[in-house]
């Protein structure tokens, strides 16, 4: 669907100001200005979008309604009779989730000599990891250091991050990147092997490394290939619907669910790693999402029921640049690399209104303000509103051919629906992108439930209240490896007691005792429901 004549007419305003904008410099916001735009326009600050949890470890903490609905729901095993001692799998380490964090964890756990099983709800590799285009951060250049990276991370997270986790993230980053390089991941490099790197939102050094604009896909397919080479056992289309604990309350396995046959299976394990990813498919506040199909927050639900603590679940990341047009790709992630390469957000009059590389929360809020308060948005014929992202600037700044070389995926995805981003700006609006919080972990990926680990987007604390671009691909590798290494080593000394689901029974009793209206809901959700929708 190419731009309509009306939109084309508006595009001439963007073209008219382009040369002037290329000469000028748009200042970054001051700290008070940032605070102001966040308070007034960031979706997290909408009071009635959240509610206090009525039970569990985080009772009284506010989380989005859509998540609260699932935390205040009954188990899928409510009326299911299971013989928990009838084991289908009996392993040292059970990894739940087949994205980047799960793959890294499985590899490292096996390196400790553990017998590892990885189960995943969809195909191995169907995860947000493959969709991360822009890059992965690591302070590996001469003008940079892990301490500089640390300051960027903790400032970007509004000084709420857990310091030990930020230290682990930034200090392990070079080794994580080196590990991927050694495995043969194809990073974009100079002739002499120097990693290419650019800025991302909120970075003070150019430390965003990339593999064209398939960075996450390249990391995922490399890790997946490696897992397969090492003969690790992977079961696809197999979700976990509850964790199993032993008599002492330690994690000891999971009840698995065959997504195709509908059968339940018991897996016993000495240590369990949740790597189930995020929850964008819960569509908080009705936002379109950049997330993959399986991002329904299952790990949060089963972990919470087993007693693991959540952190920062009242903060969600809205990516500043989701596609607002064409309608077929509504919410599609437009990588931050587009702004990293120089494209500016521009309003209906062709005027820039925010520096392109503010942190994501600030950038998204500024876009929402430009539309809602100032009325400077562009309305499409479907009623969707957005602002322009002036992609043609990139070739003017860096030379013809840059867009096609550095952003092949973006070019292709828009071309499929008739928009040529080399010549025409994109129309964008913030999209639900990332779960900043999750189950709280320590430096080794451990939760407060013994022998239960979490890695990747399902974990909380690393990014505080806002994650920077390029720190998620980093986080899945760093904490995937850390959790795998620790869980693999610990497993050797674990003796598993009798498998139990008593925590689920207790959770149900608490729901009833507190008079929580579960409205017939069961959780985890496993798959979103999109049947009979007309868009």
């Amino acid at each position: 669907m190419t731009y309509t004549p009306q939109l084309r007419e508006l595009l001439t305003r963007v073209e008219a100001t382009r040369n002037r904008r290329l000469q000028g410099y748009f200042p970054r916001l001051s700290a008070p200005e940032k605070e102001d735009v966040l308070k007034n326009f960031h979706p997290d600050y909408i009071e009635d979008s959240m509610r206090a949890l009525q039970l569990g470890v985080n009772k009284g903490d506010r989380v989005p309604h859509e998540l609260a609905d699932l935390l205040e729901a009954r188990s899928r095993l409510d009326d299911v009779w299971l013989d928990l001692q009838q084991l289908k799998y009996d392993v040292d380490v059970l990894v739940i989730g087949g994205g980047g964090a799960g793959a890294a964890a499985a590899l490292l756990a096996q390196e400790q000599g553990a017998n590892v099983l990885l189960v995943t709800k969809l195909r191995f590799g169907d995860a947000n990891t493959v969709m991360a285009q822009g890059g992965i951060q690591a302070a590996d250049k001469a003008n940079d250091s892990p301490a500089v990276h640390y300051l960027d991370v903790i400032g970007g997270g509004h000084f709420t991050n857990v310091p030990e986790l930020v230290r682990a993230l930034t200090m392990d980053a070079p080794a994580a990147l080196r590990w991927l390089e050694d495995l043969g991941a194809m990073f974009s490099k100079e002739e002499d092997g120097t990693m290419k790197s650019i800025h991302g939102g909120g970075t003070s050094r150019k430390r965003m490394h990339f593999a064209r604009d398939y960075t996450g896909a390249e990391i995922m397919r490399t890790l997946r290939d490696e897992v397969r080479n090492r003969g690790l056992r992977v079961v696809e289309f197999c979700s976990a619907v509850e964790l199993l604990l032993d008599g002492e309350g330690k994690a000891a396995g999971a009840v698995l669910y065959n997504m195709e046959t509908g059968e339940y299976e018991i897996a016993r394990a000495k240590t369990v790693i949740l790597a189930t990813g995020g929850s964008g498919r819960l569509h908080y506040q009705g936002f379109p999402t950049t997330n993959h199909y399986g991002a329904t927050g299952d790990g949060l639900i089963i972990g919470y029921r087993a007693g693991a603590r959540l952190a920062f679940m009242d903060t969600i990341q809205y990516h500043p640049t989701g596609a607002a047009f064409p309608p077929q790709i509504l919410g599609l992630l437009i990588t931050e690399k587009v702004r990293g390469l120089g494209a500016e957000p521009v309003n209906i009059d062709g005027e820039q209104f925010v520096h392109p590389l503010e942190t994501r929360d600030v950038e998204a809020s500024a876009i929402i303000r430009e539309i809602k308060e100032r009325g400077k948005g562009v309305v499409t014929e479907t009623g969707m509103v957005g602002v322009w992202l002036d992609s043609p600037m990139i070739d003017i700044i860096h030379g013809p051919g840059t867009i096609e070389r550095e952003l092949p995926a973006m070019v292709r995805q828009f071309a499929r629906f008739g928009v040529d981003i080399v010549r025409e700006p994109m129309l964008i609006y913030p999209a639900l992108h990332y779960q900043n919080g999750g189950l709280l972990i320590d430096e080794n990926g451990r939760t407060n439930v013994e022998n239960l680990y979490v890695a990747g987007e399902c974990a909380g604390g690393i990014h505080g209240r806002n994650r920077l671009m390029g720190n998620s691909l980093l986080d899945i590798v760093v904490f995937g490896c850390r959790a795998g290494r620790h869980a693999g080593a610990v497993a050797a000394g674990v003796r598993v007691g009798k498998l139990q689901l008593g925590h689920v029974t207790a959770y149900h009793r608490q729901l009833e005792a507190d008079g929580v209206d579960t409205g017939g809901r069961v959780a985890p959700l496993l798959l979103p429901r999109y049947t009979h929708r007309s868009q």
Partner: protein
Amino acid sequence: MTQETELLNIYIMGKSYQVPASLTIMNALEYAGYQLVRGCGCRAGFCGACATVYRIKGDYELKVGLACQTKVEPDMYLAQLPFFPAQKAEYNIRELKATAEQIAHFYPEIFRCIGCNACTKICPQDLKVMQYIGYAQRGQIDRCADESFDCVMCGLCASRCPAQIVHYNVGILARRLYSRYLVPPAGHLQERVAEVRDGKFDGEIAVLMTASANDLKKRYNERDIEPE
């Protein structure tokens, strides 16, 4: 959607459904009532889960596309390819050589290519698939890696190949060989890994970890930013 919705007819595995004309194949499957389990992944053209084969009524030609990236057309007969039983070689990437012989050792069938170009014609990413297999045959691993880079491993090429080549597994082997053996490792990265290991940054990090909230904010707001 506020606009009026124009409906068109499609056939999902032979069965007729009326769906809005603006939808992608994936959205049309869901509109028709399917809750997808297989054949649906990232919904954004990266994961290769939703390879779809279709034909327009009255036309003999089989076409393909990723369901999430292709709009429905009138009288489209469609079916998905959710899984393809492809062979993958198992290898230790640390013990290989970046040569044509190495690839031939794991995937000898690449030399059975008959040049029909069915793989290229079917690729939903518009890659020159036959070309990159040619590069692999000739040991031009760098070119094979480059040409295959945008592959989403959906499996359509392998499904059409009369020589039973699994192109995408050849592609990833080539990319890993190229990146590990033919491109110099990043010297600055290895240096930094050693510096971290030797504790060079421990002091600086410790200062930040123990800094007061105000001190940390001041440092952050006053930090110098590398010019773009």
